[in-house]
């Protein structure tokens, strides 16, 4: 049995957990400030899910149509269905042009306009002049913007000599004797060996939890590990009931077809060949906000106007755009349609259906990326040494519904903002604290949790015995979340779902892994991931059950309108909660007037 003394300790100024866009942007800032920074990632950084982002990144550059950061702010507040925090939204929209220029300077191969400026396309929920004509705010590298961004940021980090712990899995956060966060316990996936990272600052940038749902656009690695770690450290996660269903996943499969396809002029049709979004959103039509378009598709199918023999999807029509536009602006989704459907969108429409896509909720932070929790003195008390950014954080710039093109922006702006604050914090807090013993012991016990003594004498593999299997539990969990926590929700369906999820999670202790090798044991990794999925499922479905209104992505059939009187507030869920607690939305921006909640139509 491994004891504490056997585990090597590595010391760093900053620990970044997760090497997607947010983590890499932060790491770059820290490394360039000559700080000693470790990036821990369970995969090679270029495998992170940022790589799959297609459409682009929003910034009011006005390269194509007139634009202003203030209009961008309005659209984002409205898109959030007034649950977004307006200080954070102002900050993000103001910073957007600088963030995009920085990225251009880092070398990202943006597509270009005739005059050589960065190409910008139309995207959903964008307007000029506070709700006027459609804007074109999304800077794009064809339909591979996330790939271009992630690789560029990784390359800059290689140049900056950032230290990577690739293929290392973070098990738990470690606390200091003073109560702050002081690093994490990780293990090498390749060797199975644990390492304690002692760091005065830690950033969680672990992405979202799309794997909660059976059909999703997300990578298999998106298992909400940061959420699990935060919950186990006694921290709350915020607004988890708001999960975005992207309108255009490939029907039945889930692969993402970018909103850029509609931005370039594509549109949706039902079985009658009708362009139905005209009915639901007379002005913005197919470029209404994602929650609106997803509900419309769902309704079309439910009312019998779906396409195909089972009438269970609608078509995304692109063939009128012409081969030139598709080849130049949408080459990636053309490849994907050909690969997964045998359909060339130049000639045929793509069958699509709303698909789980993005976690609006996350670890609560302020605009400096500091993790904040309610305390006696303040609803938002910073946790010393702990930061979060990107999809794993809830600043909250996305509120109840994220606008397309704002997630790549979020990760750049708040990845950098968190790092800037970490630099300041490190200057003021020169010395490391001691680890809290109990927190270390708990983490080590957790690390050992999936080890068993059932290895045979020679250590060879054994036939799988009768016990709960990780994959079975995971499949059941994801099916329940899909059936009970989908696009439209009711009290009965949610309450039943809560009981089912609890029953599944209660079976986790009976699960066993039969692979007890130390070398690249992916079964063990999947077991830790399942635990994190379980924590996230409870947070999501319990928060959803208790929010008795419809706002953004959270649509309650039994409470079908937004209730600003009672529900313009964030939910905060702690591990073990039967019911979330709540805190107010930050409605006061930094310098401009608030946008008060008004009816949201497109």
């Amino acid at each position, binding site marked *: 049995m491994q004891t504490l003394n056997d585990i090597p300790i590595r010391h760093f100024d900053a620990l970044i957990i997760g090497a997607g866009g947010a983590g890499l942007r932060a790491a770059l800032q820290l490394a360039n400030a000559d700080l000693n920074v470790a990036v821990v990632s369970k995969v090679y950084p270029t495998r992170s899910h940022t790589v799959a982002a297609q459409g682009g990144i929003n910034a009011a550059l006005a390269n194509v149509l007139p634009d202003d950061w203030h209009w961008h702010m309005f659209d984002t507040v409205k898109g959030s269905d007034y649950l977004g925090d307006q200080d954070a939204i102002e900050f993000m929209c103001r910073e957007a042009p600088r963030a995009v220029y920085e990225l251009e300077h880092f*070398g990202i191969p943006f597509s270009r306009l005739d005059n050589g*400026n960065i190409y910008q396309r139309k995207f959903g929920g964008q307007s000029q002049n506070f709700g006027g004509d459609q804007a074109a705010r999304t800077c794009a590298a064809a339909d591979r913007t996330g790939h271009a961004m992630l690789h560029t940021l990784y390359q800059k980090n*290689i140049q900056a000599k950032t230290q990577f712990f690739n293929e290392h899995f973070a098990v738990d956060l470690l606390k200091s004797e003073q109560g702050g966060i002081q690093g994490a316990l990780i293990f090498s996936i390749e060797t199975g060996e644990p390492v304690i990272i002692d760091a005065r600052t830690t950033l969680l940038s672990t992405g979202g939890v799309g794997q909660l749902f059976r059909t999703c656009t997300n990578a*298999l690695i998106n298992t909400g590990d940061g959420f699990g770690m935060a919950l186990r450290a006694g921290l709350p996660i915020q607004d988890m009931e708001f999960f975005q269903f992207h309108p255009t996943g490939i029907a039945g499969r889930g692969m993402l077809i970018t909103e850029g396809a509609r931005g370039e002029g594509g549109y949706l049709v039902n079985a009658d060949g009708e362009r139905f979004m005209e009915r639901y959103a007379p002005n913005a039509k197919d470029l209404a906000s994602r929650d609106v378009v997803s509900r419309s598709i769902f309704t079309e199918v439910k009312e019998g106007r779906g396409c195909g023999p089972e009438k269970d999807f609608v078509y995304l029509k692109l063939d009128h755009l012409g081969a030139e536009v598709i080849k130049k602006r949408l080459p990636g989704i053309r490849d994907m349609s050909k690969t997964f459907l045998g359909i060339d969108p130049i000639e045929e429409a793509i069958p699509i259906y709303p698909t789980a896509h993005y976690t609006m909720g996350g670890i609560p932070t302020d605009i400096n990326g500091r993790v904040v929790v309610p305390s006696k003195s303040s609803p938002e008390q910073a946790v010393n040494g702990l930061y979060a950014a990107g999809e794993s954080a809830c600043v909250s710039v996305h509120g109840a519904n994220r606008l397309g093109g704002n997630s790549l922006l979020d990760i750049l702006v708040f990845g950098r903002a968190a790092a800037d604050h970490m630099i300041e914090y490190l200057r003021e807090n020169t010395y490391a604290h001691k680890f809290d013993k109990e927190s270390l012991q708990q983490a080590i016990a957790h690390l050992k949790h999936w080890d068993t003594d059932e290895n045979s004498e020679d250590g060879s593999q054994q036939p799988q015995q009768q016990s709960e299997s990780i994959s079975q539990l995971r499949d059941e969990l994801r099916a329940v979340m899909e059936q009970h926590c989908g696009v439209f929700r009711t009290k009965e369906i949610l309450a039943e779902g809560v009981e089912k999820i609890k029953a599944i999670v209660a079976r986790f202790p009976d699960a066993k892994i039969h692979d007890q090798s130390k070398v690249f044991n992916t079964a063990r990794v999947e077991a830790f991931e399942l635990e994190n999925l379980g924590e996230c499922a409870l947070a999501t479905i319990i928060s959803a059950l208790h929010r008795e209104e419809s706002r953004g992505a959270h649509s309650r059939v039994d409470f079908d309108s937004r209730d600003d009187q009672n529900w313009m507030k964030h939910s905060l869920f702690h591990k073990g909660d039967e019911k979330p607690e709540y805190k107010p939305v930050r409605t006061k921006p930094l310098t401009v007037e608030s946008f008060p909640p008004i009816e949201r139509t497109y």
Partner: protein
Amino acid sequence: MRFSIYRYNPEWDEQPFVQDFELADDKIESGMMLLGALIKLKEQDETLSFRRSCQEGVCGSDGMNINGTNGLACITPLSDLKQPIELRPLPGMPVIRDLIVNMEPFFKQYKAVKPWLIVDEEPQPESERIQSIEDREKLDGLYECILCGCCSAACPSYWWNPDRFMGPAALLQASRFIQDSRDEAKAERLEQLDDAYKLFRCHTIMNCVQVCPKGLNPTKAIGKIKQEMLKQKL
């Protein structure tokens, strides 16, 4: 459906062996990719180890040798494959376990070509650099690389000299920066590659082109580098 899969765990096995697997017909969905089948096989035997993430051919995790050809499991349709489906780790790369190879030597070559923009003077912070559509088009076919390693692991020159020949993936990356109108270290980059091994071990065998899951053409990119070198020398 029948599979024949390379197995090796350094803790248990003195040497690698090939194990037969069978996946029942009712587990096979229409349009299923090879990765889907591997995930089902892992449910039967969870010791079967492979990397995977995005499931749509953009992250580059699941490069492997499939019936003798390198490719990504997640975008290889099962229906196209002859049975038994023979799966091996990427050739020429050290095996860690089963289908998982050590990618460190591959990434070392990638890093060696300095895959980042080098400029003499940082541009003004509040502005974007201008790049014409024509100049930007020179990066098409280069920037899309996902670093899966399929090409380098298909290259006999890379098999023999993995530490001295940069391999097609790293050279494609070098070309991506040499071709970028914003980069100001072209001469330096070309000089660094002007070496009997680093670049000139490419004998245009073109295996890289054949296997690239993104349809890229490293051989052409390498040819471009050679042309640029020639131009530089004239």
